[in-house]
């Protein structure tokens, strides 16, 4: 608190009353009204019954664990394997997508930082950014066009004789994984690139000069340098993938739901807001704990993210 006040006085001295007030009010508004209060409110809601509007605030409206209880258990007391499986599958799928992105982005980040020069490098940067400007929905749609039963992949595959009946890539979740991996490539490449770029290229040359094979140069010299970038990118990709809604809705097979879709159903189809809130809290807590765990494992701090 004292330090906050100190920062405010220093702002005041440097930029004047108007600017200091502007900063103080905006940041307070952001932190309190936009970030904290909604989360608290959602948390509060998740501990309530789903009541009709006229009963809210009455005797019946008291705190309960029922929403969380019904995430873990069915009404007959058996384990709610369905929802828990969906959560676990979502997390695993997000992890797989993240790893795919790490694998395909690392070489590009390295080439961009230390291989490509001049026009080629610029073209690559533009090329990376342009797909990101296309609407998320349309990007997912592109994969639907690609992987539909009369899509290019099926047509070519069959023409080349690789398979002879259309493969249902949508049902097999191939389209979904590809679409998700595609969607967040940029968020993986740039943090990696920033980290690798800081590496002095002569170090790579020196290591090569000493006779180290390329893989060892990467393992011993480049990768340690890239680590904060990889963790930062992986965190973002993981969180966004686990929290994705559009791509699973568009590309997901009819039989495999994403956890966010479950939340969506509680809200928009069953109109059970407290249940939806509880599920949202479950998702949030699981994702954040998972990321914090990974950061602990890889010894990287939150401050690295977004750099």
């Amino acid at each position, binding site marked *: 608190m004292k*330090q*906050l006040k100190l*920062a405010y006085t220093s702002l005041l001295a*440097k*930029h*004047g*009353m108007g*600017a200091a007030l502007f*900063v103080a009010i*905006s940041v307070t508004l*952001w932190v309190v009204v936009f*970030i904290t209060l*909604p*989360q608290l*409110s*959602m948390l509060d809601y998740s501990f309530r019954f789903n009541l009709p509007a006229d009963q809210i605030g009455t005797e019946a409206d008291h705190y309960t664990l029922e929403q969380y209880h019904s995430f873990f258990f069915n009404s007959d007391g058996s384990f709610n394997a369905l929802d828990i499986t969906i959560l676990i599958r979502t997390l695993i799928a997000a992890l797989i997508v993240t790893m795919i992105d790490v694998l395909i982005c690392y*070489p*590009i980040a390295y*080439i961009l930082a230390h*291989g490509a020069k001049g026009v080629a490098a610029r073209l690559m940067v*533009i*090329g990376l*950014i342009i797909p990101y*400007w*296309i*609407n*998320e*929905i*349309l*990007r*997912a*749609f592109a*994969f*639907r*066009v690609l992987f*539909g039963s*009369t899509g*290019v992949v*099926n*047509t070519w595959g069959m023409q080349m004789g690789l398979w002879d*009946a*259309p493969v249902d890539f*949508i049902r097999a979740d191939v389209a979904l994984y590809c679409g998700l991996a595609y969607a967040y*490539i940029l968020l993986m490449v740039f943090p990696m690139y920033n980290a690798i770029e800081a590496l002095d290229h002569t170090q790579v040359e020196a290591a090569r000069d000493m006779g180290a094979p*390329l893989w060892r140069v990467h393992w011993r010299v480049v990768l340690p340098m890239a680590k904060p970038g990889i963790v930062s990118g992986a965190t973002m990709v993981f969180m*966004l993938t686990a*929290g994705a809604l559009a791509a699973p*809705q*568009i590309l997901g097979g009819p039989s495999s739901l994403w956890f*966010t879709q479950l*939340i969506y159903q509680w*809200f928009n189809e069953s109109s059970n807001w407290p249940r939806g*809130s509880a599920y949202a809290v479950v998702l*949030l807590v699981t*994702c*954040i704990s998972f990321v914090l765990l990974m950061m602990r494992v890889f010894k990287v*701090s*939150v*401050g690295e993210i*977004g750099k």
Partner: protein
Amino acid sequence: MNRHTLFGGAYALAFFAFLFGPLVIMATTAFNSSRFPRVAPWECFTTGWFGELFGNARLMEGLMNSVIIGVGVVALAVPIGLAGALALSELPAKLRSMLYTVLILPILIPGVVLGISTIVLWGQITRGTGAGFLYNGYFLTIVGQITFVSAYAMLVFIARLQRFDATQTEAALDLGATPGQAFRKILLPFMAPAIGSAAFITLLASFENYNTTVFTVLSESTFTTALASKVRHGTDPSLSALAVIIITLTLVGALTNEAYQRRKEAEAGGRASRSPLYANPVTRALTHPGIVFAILVTVIGGITYAGSQYDSSVCEAAVLQEKLDRQEELRAEQRERIEAQEAEQGVTVPKPDSAFGGAFGGVGTPAAPAAPKPESPSAFGGAFGGITAPEVDE
């Protein structure tokens, strides 16, 4: 060494093929008259899907809403992001990293969680205060999006602020400026380019957002949510037409920006300034960003006009006729076979096979006339989809 370069080049090519392949294929389907977005079989070149796109009332209404919301979000998120960056620059290290974590968190929190928490909070506020006017899709979407969009703006400002020389402010104060004057005349002009890019990024983020918006927009719809519900309920190539438009706009923007950056670099001196492109007055004028932009706009305008004049109805009619003929043929075949079967062993109703399910995506198999398994599933599934594909919503 050469081997590695070769491998790197090949990898980069494959990578960018993955990035652009889906977009190119999607864009191509915009010009195929087939009712289902696909490249093969190619039926007729058409520009009709663009007309269909602009005729979609729900999308156009969503576009309007998106613009309103986008303007609101930019107007609030940019100042908030700037305030966040300024606050971080004044805090001592430990508090700074704490605040940074809090402010960056909304980028990482799943969008659905932000959306839900926003409607829950404002729902409660509305109930508590009776301020019902707050509980509408526009307000909630703006509030919900600001939460994380401001963080994007903040990242842009942090990057710019790191290059600010704080002695500039001190110099202004020393020369007699009040702190407020120094802020307005020195710091804000320095931040101006970043304000531009932050506004652009926040607008794009607001426009694109689905996960949060789909909750907060309530019964209204934005461009993106309308788009999503269209995709979910059945696809047709007018979406590809939309992609063509967006890709074109993006390319125009990127090329103009590239011309601008190059020129700026050339003016700042260095290698580019000695390039013959800038020595010759004609090419020099041609590489001016304004001219580049004008040329691009003219070319695209020309193509659009030519496209709007193109009439594919003759070809389409021919293809339709061909399909009808083929269907007739198949029906005849089917009848023959059924008759033959009936003659042998009574009635059978063939089930639609999974090939059709695929063709209609997750929509579910429409009530389709029963058909026997054709010799070439692909061609048949396509032809079938082309004629009786379900009417897309509205």
